[in-house]
């Protein structure tokens, strides 16, 4: 069995961490979870792949196109499916169904256009898939680069959340009324967050290309992984998302070798449930006091 699954797991786990992070970005100002998130990831990969093949764009141009496009789709999701529901006086969880519907629409629309065949996306140049030995492991520069990129994205986000706009978003999450009184507009920052979340999701889809292959069916699996990563890490905590994303990747990889590839979803769900039932706020989440 050895340590191979560890490498595979960490690689896939980095992607899961990214998806979880994109979930957190939306959650902070809105307290909701976009059920179309997995499909946004998938969309990022497919648009990039299509741009690379059909439009013959260079890698970074194709990636940029995909990122902006998905950012806009995510932004549109807020306006069409989330904001109207949150504005309703009686609140509730209507956004679960509306974002689910958006996900269904995206998946099937894209499926019609692109077809079911998975499309290859090469790693960002200059990274590649040539294996080399690193101690007891066989890895490639893409895998190393991936973890670095994810770390950089988290650092980038932490910078963002240290700016005034970013801190305003954190302020909304902490005390909505107080932020209103200081001239902060939660709706505007929510829209911005959806856009940023789309960007991170697209990045996940593009960077996942070499291991997952961009395909329509990816959306559903990544939705669940993204939820698991965010929830187990402690929703709202990006560092938690990294830790739990990597753990999930490892659990999944070992389940594939020890049991069978078909049991990956089962293994990660059981793992997530065990953690959540023991610690509902997640590994690095904070317990919030609730007032009646």
């Amino acid at each position, binding site marked *: 069995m050895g340590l191979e699954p560890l490498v595979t797991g960490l690689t896939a786990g980095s992607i899961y961490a990214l998806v979880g992070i994109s979930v957190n970005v939306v959650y902070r100002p809105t307290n909701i979870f976009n059920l179309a998130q997995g499909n946004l990831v998938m969309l990022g990969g497919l648009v990039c792949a299509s741009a690379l093949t059909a439009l013959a764009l260079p890698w970074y141009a194709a990636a940029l196109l995909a990122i902006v496009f998905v950012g806009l789709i995510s932004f549109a999701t807020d306006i069409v499916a989330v904001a109207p529901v949150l504005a309703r006086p009686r609140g509730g969880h209507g956004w679960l169904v509306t974002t689910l519907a958006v996900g269904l629409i995206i998946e099937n629309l894209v499926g019609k256009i692109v077809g079911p065949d998975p499309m290859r996306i090469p790693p960002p140049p200059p990274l590649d898939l040539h294996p080399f030995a690193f101690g007891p492991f066989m890895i490639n520069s893409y895998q190393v680069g991936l973890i670095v990129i994810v770390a950089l994205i988290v650092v980038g986000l932490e910078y963002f959340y240290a700016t005034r706009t970013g*801190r305003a978003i954190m*302020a909304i999450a*902490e*005390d909505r009324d107080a932020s209103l009184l*200081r*001239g902060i507009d939660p709706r505007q920052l929510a829209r911005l967050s959806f856009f940023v979340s789309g960007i991170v999701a697209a990045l996940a889809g593009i960077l996942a290309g070499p291991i997952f292959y961009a395909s329509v069916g990816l959306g559903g699996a990544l939705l669940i992984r993204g939820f698991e990563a965010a929830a187990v890490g402690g929703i709202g905590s990006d560092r938690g998302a990294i830790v739990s994303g990597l753990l999930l990747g490892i659990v999944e990889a070992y389940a594939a070798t020890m049991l069978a590839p078909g049991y990956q979803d089962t293994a990660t769900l059981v793992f997530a449930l065990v953690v959540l039932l023991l610690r509902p706020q997640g590994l690095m989440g904070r317990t919030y006091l609730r007032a009646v």
Partner: protein
Amino acid sequence: MSREPSHYLLEVKGLSSGYGRVPVLRAVDMSVKAGQIVALVGSNGAGKSTLLKTISGLIPKTEGSVEWDGVEISHRKPRAIVNLGLLHVAEGRRLFRSQSVESNLDLGFYGAGLDREAEMRRFDEVLGMFPMLAERRRLPAGSLSGGQQQMLAIAQALMRTPRLIVLDEPSLGLAPIIVDQVFELLLRLRGEGCAVLLVEQLVERALEIADHAFVLQNGRMVGSGRAEDVRQSEVLAQAYLTG
């Protein structure tokens, strides 16, 4: 003492509002002139906080009007009202406790559209008024004492150089010495041309520093006048001790 200005900065006419279907305020009239300290007093549940929140745009009105410089603002969003120079320091020292003192102060500039230089100047100015906050710049706001938090909340509002600052029960839970400091600060603000609308439990003290006062009882305005006069009046005693 500054010369009495002639027009109203804030004027509330016949205002009714409440929470959902709970009517709280009924046809309330109130006004604040530029450069005044106005006290709003009344027993608990009278609707004082509701009135402030309606003025700030957190709660929609059901009837009546709120005018700023003669312009109707009752339908505007909270951030538009902040942009006008009406800053509300909420009850309970609502700060962003997980963020640093400096971050909280900086958020006071959110949406103000000032350039970097103007911001830095104002920042130093305000911090100069609150030396104990300057010492604790980097600390999380939640680690400050009650009195320091109250000062921080006011300082945060001051970043915008408001024309009217509205305070909801600033003395709650504070030691008398700190309350003294807060009230001194309010006098100083008036001296610098900022009007103050003050809701206070410590009626006597509020009436001591105020120019004008309004008395709210069960959602209605039952008395108003110069702070002196209101202090002596029967209306006040009635409002507090017989509900």
